[in-house]
């Protein structure tokens, strides 16, 4: 009887989810199986079924795999650094050693309100040798050079997201009842020891959550490098996988771009899913 209401609750979201999530995924897969063929040099263009031809091109596309390697290197360095800082700041805020917790929590969180595009524009100016407030530094080190620009972008992403991740971990710390620490403190455990042996294991689910979001975010990098193309010629039109999708679709070669999209989405899905499963198994064993 009461279940009669279920469609009213589920259908509005369901319809939109099908129309703007499932259908596009299906459509991308279909498009990626087609190719454009031209009969003769000046003949009419038509779309024909190409099987896995586009995927073969994806797997032979050097720049695409280079871009995946680039975001992989980025992720291996930037994600642990960012989450490490976020964890340390959350633990410090929770340690009772900090006066003005409210202020610091807000100050660290503010950059999250700034969209990636705007943050990248700001930092682009800050890195530039002529305009930067850190002129002595930026004139000695070229943050926009081919060697460094990836890490300059990593700094922008870190700047935006540390506070957000810190807040997730800090919220999880606040949810732990203080009696848990009291016993350890009675036994003479110091702050450091309590943080390492009690707090970190307790907030592990929050750390896993932030890691998954960071992995997804890293593979999707687009806005920041796209903005940096105006500041540095080292950022090419295939610098990240998503930039490759965008520049391939602007050629336009929609079939190949669709194949890139599918491969990227699958990679993202498999990586984040595998990470979730791996951490779940480990916590089940403990």
């Amino acid at each position: 009887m009461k279940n009669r209401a279920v469609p009213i609750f589920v259908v509005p979201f369901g319809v939109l989810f099908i129309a703007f999530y499932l259908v596009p995924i299906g459509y991308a897969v279909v498009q990626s199986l087609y190719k454009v063929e031209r009969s003769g040099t000046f003949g009419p263009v038509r779309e024909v079924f190409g099987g896995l031809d586009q995927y073969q091109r994806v797997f032979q596309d050097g720049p695409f795999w280079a871009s995946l390697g680039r975001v992989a290197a980025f992720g291996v360095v930037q994600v642990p650094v960012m989450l490490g800082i976020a964890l340390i700041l959350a633990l410090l805020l929770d340690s009772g050693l900090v006066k003005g917790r409210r202020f610091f929590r807000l100050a660290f969180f503010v950059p999250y309100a700034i969209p990636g595009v705007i943050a990248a524009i700001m930092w682009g100016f800050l890195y530039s040798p002529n305009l930067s407030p850190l002129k002595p530094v930026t004139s000695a080190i070229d943050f926009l050079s081919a060697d460094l620009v990836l890490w300059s972008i990593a700094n922008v992403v870190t700047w935006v997201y540390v506070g957000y991740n810190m807040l997730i971990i800090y919220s999880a710390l606040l949810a732990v009842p203080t009696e848990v620490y009291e016993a350890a403190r009675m036994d003479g455990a110091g702050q450091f020891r309590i943080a390492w042996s009690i707090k970190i294991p307790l907030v592990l689910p929050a750390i896993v959550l932030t890691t998954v979001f960071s992995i997804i975010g890293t593979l999707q990098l687009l806005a920041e490098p796209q903005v940096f193309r105006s500041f540095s010629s080292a950022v090419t039109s295939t610098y990240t996988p998503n930039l490759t999708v965008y520049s391939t679709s602007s050629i336009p070669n929609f079939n190949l771009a669709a194949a890139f999209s599918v491969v990227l989405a699958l990679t993202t899905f498999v990586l984040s899913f595998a990470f979730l499963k791996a951490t779940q198994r480990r916590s089940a064993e403990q």
Partner: protein
Amino acid sequence: MKSRVGVMAVMGLCTIYFLAPIWWLFVGATKNNDQFTGTAPMWFADFHLVDNIRELVTYRDGVFLRWMLNSIAYTGGAALLGTVLAAMCGYALAKYRFRGRELLFNIVLSGVLVPATALALPLFLIFSKAGAANTFWAVFLPSLVNPFGVYLARIYAAASVPEELLEAARIDGSGEVRTFFTVSTRLMFPALVTIFLFHFVAVWNNFLLPLIMLSDERLFPVTLGLYTWNTQVNQVPELRGLVIVGALLSITPLVVAFLLLQRFWRNGLGAGAVK
């Protein structure tokens, strides 16, 4: 005592790191073009902020204001409506037992792991086929869907809406939908604000969809608008000042809203992460 001094020093350094770029933007927005390059970047010269804003909002028939309004419509509208839809679906998943419930939940959960950027290109192709690619709806409608919101709503509904209360409402003769809107949403309200904020930021940050979808600059959200100006700075140097002031104006409402709604982030995120 020593450790307290050390900790406060770390906190101070981090505060400088996080806030100095915003301070620089604010100071930069108060300068005219000569002062921007010729005076100390971290301190004020003559205060030109009002003139700069006037120039920005009148430039090319006030296109910047239009971008701001577009952003509010895309982001605010999609987040508001999207939150209601996600809340309804998540609530049903938490509070009713029906066939296909687990399947539905698993499909939605997989949707969380599918990055929104992977959808941008096929969405463009579909909207082009329908002749609707370069329209408001092409960006707005896809932005309504928020699988992560459904996931959070399910957790929050299970945690904050007691069965007994729903039973009591049923005995009183209140319909299921009415109970949801009058009783359950009230209990879930802090959680709904969290979902709204998450959704808001996701739409606000989704750059690829409008980039691929829109060619008419009068439909741009402010991020895309400022991005296109920034790409032209080398050819049109006076745009640099406009980009700086525009960046400041575009982040101000969001920063203020964030600070005001901050406690919802904390509460909601805590519940979402512990489960």
